[in-house]
């Protein structure tokens, strides 16, 4: 009887809510998981105040014009939406408030709708998001793809300079621009022929906004198991969107430095005429 009471009292002891700074909080949370704290805290700060500050700064028109560029006017609201700190509804309402007509916010709101769409699929089939929705349309079957993520990818040492730079950003910040996610995911699935599930799990573990539905179904879109054709890209496309800080020289990115036609032959030799999405 005494033991049960003691156990129950231990269960009811709340965890602390007072910290001197973010580093102390990070160390405390790491201690709860019995793992080493990160060297640097993520620039993405939890809580409603940080979320509202970012929400106040959104510009749907600029977003629409620049969102594919890594230095474009993206919102970085995804982690807050993922964890319910913000709702899609209030983000949409804010977007409508800062434009003259709803049409000017349509592209921005459509991107919010993607999340709503993924959540509806997740709700309809909660256990299905780790399963191929459809067959690969790459000329290969699922069994042709490796199950596990190679160590060189996990540590950002693939030897493909731009991919390694993007992986470093992911590992250091817990965030990656959507276009960068597409490049890394396509590299893993199509250049390295790894099952999308291995890459999706690794993304979930490292992204602060990692959402099982949005993440996994986006990987399936890249892989072609939830799209009509595979997504792939070439070095010219990377150079157009990543900005000057990332090395896009052909010599340091040889596997990507081809025309789309040549890449299609190299990546999907069993297909007659694949096209880039």
């Amino acid at each position, binding site marked *: 009887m005494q033991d049960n009471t003691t156990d*129950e009292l231990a*269960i*009811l*002891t*709340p*965890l602390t*809510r007072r910290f001197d700074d*973010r580093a102390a909080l*990070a160390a*405390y*949370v*790491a201690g*709860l*998981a*019995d*793992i080493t704290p*990160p060297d640097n*805290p*993520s620039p*993405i*700060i*939890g*809580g*409603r*105040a940080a979320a509202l500050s970012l929400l106040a700064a959104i510009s749907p028109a600029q977003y629409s014009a620049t969102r594919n560029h890594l230095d474009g006017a993206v919102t970085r609201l995804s*982690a807050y939406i*993922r*964890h*319910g*700190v*913000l*709702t899609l*509804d209030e983000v*949409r*309402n804010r977007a*409508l408030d800062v434009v003259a007509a*709803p*049409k000017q*916010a*349509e592209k921005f*709101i*459509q991107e919010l*709708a*993607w*999340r*709503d*769409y993924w959540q*509806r*699929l997740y709700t309809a089939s*909660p*256990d299905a998001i780790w399963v191929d929705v459809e067959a690969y349309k790459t000329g290969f079957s699922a069994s042709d793809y490796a199950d596990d993520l190679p160590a060189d990818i996990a540590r950002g040492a693939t030897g493909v300079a731009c991919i390694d730079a993007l992986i470093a950003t992911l590992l250091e910040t*817990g965030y990656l621009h959507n276009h960068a996610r597409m490049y890394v995911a396509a590299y893993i699935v199509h250049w390295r022929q790894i099952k999308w599930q291995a890459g999706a*799990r690794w993304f*979930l*573990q*490292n*992204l*602060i906004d*990692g959402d*099982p539905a949005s993440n996994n179904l986006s990987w399936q879109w890249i892989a072609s198991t939830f799209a009509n054709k595979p997504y792939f890209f070439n070095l010219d496309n990377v150079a157009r969107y990543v900005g000057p800080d990332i090395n896009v020289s052909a010599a340091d990115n040889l596997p990507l430095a081809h025309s789309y036609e040549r890449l299609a032959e190299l990546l999907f030799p069993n297909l007659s005429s694949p096209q880039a999405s």
Partner: protein
Amino acid sequence: MAGLIWLHEEALRADHPVFASASGATAVFCWDVDYMTAADIGLRRQIFIYESLLDLEVTIIRGAASQVLPVVARRDQATQLFVPDTPNPLIKHELLKVKAALAGMTVELVPERPFVQLEVQPDLGRFFRYWNKARKQALRRGGM
């Protein structure tokens, strides 16, 4: 009747409808490292979640919900449990264990505010089939 809220990692804000549904109820977040591992929630995200919890009137208690909530419910003589609704099968599975441990307690799943309110579930086979049905409401305040 005393109420208890199980606040989980998908509902980290003070105006989530679960708080209005359960006015005056005690809110508990169960810090479950095994769940975090199973859900692929890495350390940086755990830090983000903890930081977000500090905004909220919620007691953070270490352990699985099925271990923690029955003890809190007994202490508070709670008769109702409120949970933010979610499609997450890991949370749903844990909720089944909570229900088994809380026999006789009513459990209410409280939905999030919707993005769009559609009378008929759209065809989800491809995004644009959904978007064609949702677009009109999506471009209106409140999604109505």
